[in-house]
């Protein structure tokens, strides 16, 4: 997208996609865990690249990151990021006292969320979207995110960040679930939904 200006309608569309995606993700996770799961209404932010690490908690803050590649009809990345304490909370809530590696539990939870979220998005655009298996790592926010930013911002200096936070069994997990789409994919997706909205005389 050489020069798309993100409109008010675009932001509404992204918000609604985030809502449906995170609703699905919460249901899927809740069914598997058999516990109440809530995902907050997603925040949509159009970010200058130099602001991204601060938006996600601070460039030098240490986080556990679970990362997925998105391909086929849409290209981009999904990143699930939480701090160590909240990773432990997820592990305790999900696996109780069982001796399971924290990273595996976090990665599996992120996997369920991503599958449901991206699945909902695929249904909405009536097309196929693939997710790679998760990759987990611990490092500074800036270093976890900069390679992805490089890939989605090779033309423009701004990108849309869609993020939500997670609550399992009343334990608030203040993490970020982030969808970053490559410029062309974001553009195509917004055009697709814009045309649907306009054809339906949506007001």
């Amino acid at each position, binding site marked *: 997208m*050489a*020069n798309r200006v993100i409109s008010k309608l675009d932001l509404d569309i992204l918000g609604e996609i985030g809502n449906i995606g995170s609703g699905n993700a919460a249901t899927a996770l809740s069914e598997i865990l058999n516990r109440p799961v809530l995902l907050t209404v997603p925040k949509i932010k159009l970010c200058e*690249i*130099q*602001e*991204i*690490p601060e938006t996600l908690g601070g*460039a*030098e803050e*240490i986080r556990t990151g679970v*990362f997925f*590649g998105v*391909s086929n009809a849409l290209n981009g*990345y999904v990143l699930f990021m939480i701090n160590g304490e909240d990773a432990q909370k997820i592990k305790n809530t999900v696996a109780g006292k069982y001796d399971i590696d924290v990273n595996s539990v976090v990665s599996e939870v992120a996997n369920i969320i991503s599958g449901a979220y991206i699945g909902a998005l695929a249904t909405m655009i009536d097309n196929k979207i693939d997710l*790679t298996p998760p*990759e987990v*790592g*611990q*490092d*500074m*926010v*800036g*270093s*976890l*995110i*900069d*390679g*992805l*930013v*490089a*890939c989605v*911002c*090779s*033309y*423009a*200096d701004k990108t849309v960040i869609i993020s939500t936070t997670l609550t399992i069994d009343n334990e608030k997990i203040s993490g970020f679930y982030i969808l970053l789409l490559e410029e062309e994919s974001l553009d195509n997706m917004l055009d697709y939904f814009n045309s649907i909205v306009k054809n339906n005389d949506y007001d």
Partner: protein
Amino acid sequence: MIMTNINVGMGELHVSKSPDVVLIAPGLGSCIGLIMYDPIAKIGGMAHVVLPDSANAKSNNVLLGKYADTAIPGLLNSLLKIGAKKSNIMVIMAGGAQMFNLDKGSNILNIGMRNVIAVKAALSKEKLNVKSSDTGGNTGRTLRIEISTGKAYVKSIGQPEGEL
């Protein structure tokens, strides 16, 4: 002396001749923190390079530090403008890690390594040599330089900060 920390974010470029300034590129993954310093004039600068090549950039792009091929001449010219001498300039760089192993196309694969190669190529075009560097691997880094001394330090998680 009270030090002033200045964050150099993704795509940014900053130069200074104030002795109280410390320039910092926090949380470098595949990005490169590039320092140029004139030890005689005690003038220095830093660029936070995100990508190798500006070929596809928007024409009205103003983030000089974002691409290797614009950051090196951009940083050099900004330093010369405030009194640095090209023959004195020494270069220090850190970053260019590969944070995730993901087999999805070739773009994200080795973006760090591609950045290192592009920065080195742009430096040799300007006939500038790298004095010291810490690149590659798979851990994040924070790079900083004190303008008063020209001393540069690099820090990774779980490791003490070391001088470069």
